[in-house]
């Protein structure tokens, strides 16, 4: 499949802070790429370079075959961006915001007005359309920002943490809107800190940390790499943590991590591991106060992936 986005060897530093350290990735036309990474990983920097807001120090990025640095002027009408912080005008109404953006895309006045009305209806902003954005909730603001990034019907869309700070209901609503866009053929690059979000929306996930790609694949493949489940063991006596870790280390494919008296074992077979852990702890006469199976948290995905990355890097 042809690539709508091609990034090779992209680097960017702010002074001595290296934000992107040689990023390579591609997004197939009509597909969704989820860019997953912790705070400061370089997600926003990458999105800003791809949307012509920032120029890279080195490397190349092409979108729809156009170079983001050299062909920025021709590229802009074909891109949409909803940034990490909603960039809408607080003092204008929702309708005025959308019309203004339409006019700045050089749509004829009437077309811009019609487009604004369409988007207002589609994003369910009808009731608030003629009120200043100042009084909007976080969810409404996000919807308006997304609407503004669709005024030009862009074939390639960038969303930087579109649901951060939203309540579960607004998040679900936004996911449905995004899914509809993708059905209509839009190529989407989406950054997020939520594994669940990447899982639901993305065809492929790229994990970045410290400005480098540390893993990529489908959501399922990544979760398998990390271990599908986690067994938590809380030992009664803090002094027994190291003893428990050595007893349990043969059960998980990673060394169990610990925080205080809590040990976490990534595993594929949660219940089986739980049973075996109980037996081993019993045999070693280590008292536990809590024993449970759960899904891995994003933290653990990151921790595991970065730990693995370090091991790979070692000779």
């Amino acid at each position, binding site marked *: 499949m042809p*690539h709508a986005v091609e990034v090779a060897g992209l680097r960017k530093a702010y002074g001595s802070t290296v934000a992107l350290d040689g990023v390579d990735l591609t997004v197939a036309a009509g597909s969704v790429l989820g860019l997953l990474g912790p705070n400061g990983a370089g997600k926003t920097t990458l999105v800003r370079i791809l949307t012509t807001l920032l120029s890279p120090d080195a490397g190349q990025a092409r979108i729809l075959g156009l170079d983001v640095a050299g062909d920025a002027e021709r590229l802009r009408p074909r891109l949409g961006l909803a940034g990490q912080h909603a960039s809408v005008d607080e003092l204008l109404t929702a309708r005025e915001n959308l019309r203004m953006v339409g006019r700045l895309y*050089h749509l004829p006045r009437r077309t811009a007005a019609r487009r604004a009305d369409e988007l207002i209806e589609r994003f369910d902003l009808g009731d608030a359309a003629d009120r200043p954005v100042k009084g909007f909730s976080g969810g409404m603001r996000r919807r308006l920002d997304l609407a503004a990034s669709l005024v030009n019907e862009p074939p390639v869309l960038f969303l930087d943490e579109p649901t951060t700070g939203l309540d579960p209901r607004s998040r679900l609503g936004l996911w449905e809107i995004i899914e509809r866009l993708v059905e209509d053929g839009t190529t989407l690059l989406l950054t997020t800190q939520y594994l669940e979000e990447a899982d639901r929306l993305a065809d492929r996930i790229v994990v970045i940390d410290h400005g480098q790609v540390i893993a990529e694949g489908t959501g399922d493949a990544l979760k398998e790499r990390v271990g599908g489940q986690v067994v938590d063991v809380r030992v009664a006596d803090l002094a027994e943590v190291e003893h428990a870790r050595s007893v349990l280390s043969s059960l998980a494919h990673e060394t169990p991590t610990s925080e205080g008296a809590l040990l976490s074992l990534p595993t594929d077979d949660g219940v089986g591991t739980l049973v075996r852990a109980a037996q081993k702890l019993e045999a070693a006469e280590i008292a536990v106060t809590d024993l449970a199976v759960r899904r891995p948290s994003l933290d653990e995905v990151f921790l595991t992936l970065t730990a693995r990355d370090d091991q790979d890097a070692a000779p």
Partner: protein
Amino acid sequence: MTASGVTSGTGPSPDADPPQGGVPRDAPSEAGPRAITADQPAWTRLRWAASDAAVVTGRNLRHFVRQPQLLLFSTVQPVMFVLLFAFVFDGAIDVPTDDYLQYLLPGIFVQSVAFRAAQTAVGLAEDLDRGVIDRFRTLPMARSAVLAGRTFADLARNVFIVLLMAGVGLALGFRFETNPWLAVAAILMVSLFGYALSWVFAYVGLRTKGAEAAQSAGFVVMFPLVFASSVFVPVESMPGWLATFASWSPITHAADAARALSIGSGPALPPTLLSLTSIAVVLAVFVPLSVRAYRRAR
């Protein structure tokens, strides 16, 4: 209806080229988004640049109307200065005119645009902070439009404030002593001076981090400069070094020209030419500086 009530058929129109193939649509449809690119004829680019500037100006003018308190305080403040100086210093300051108000009011015109100029910096700093400029930068609009739209809107506000000051002055007994044309020229001259100052503060706004910093920078710079000029007192009444400084100040040039044009304090042409020259110098320095700062800002 909830956020999920998305209707189909309003997505990218079916006649738009599908994104497959990675090939850009090179001739966007008549009604589609259009970029300003280097390969277009100059007049097309100019027309779109003008249209973009007009859109941004309109947006900024709406902001004035939607912030009534700001509008109120920005008009009350110069009125307060007129009243304070006219009544407190009447007779206490030695001026070439019989009545201090006659001397003061053209100066107040200049003072009011000088103190408001920092609003250009505040407006730009706010737009940067709130990401509005990021939105603009992703659009295929003229690069010049944000600064042009900002300064044009501020010019409109300056004209409004100077007219208001003239109205207040007339109510207090001020009289234009030249002729209506020169009175209009005085108001235009002061507004033009305010326009040049807007470019100074556009630069300040793009280079300082945050609207409050921009606001204080404006106050710290403009306050002493306005007092060290012929706005309130004649330059001749100042101590030697200050008089030298004041005689080089574009604020003095503007105040002298406004005075000559509105009350005929002397021949109008020399101070007007001097003021137009200093306005040209300010613009020649700060327009390129601001444009460069805009390209680089965050």
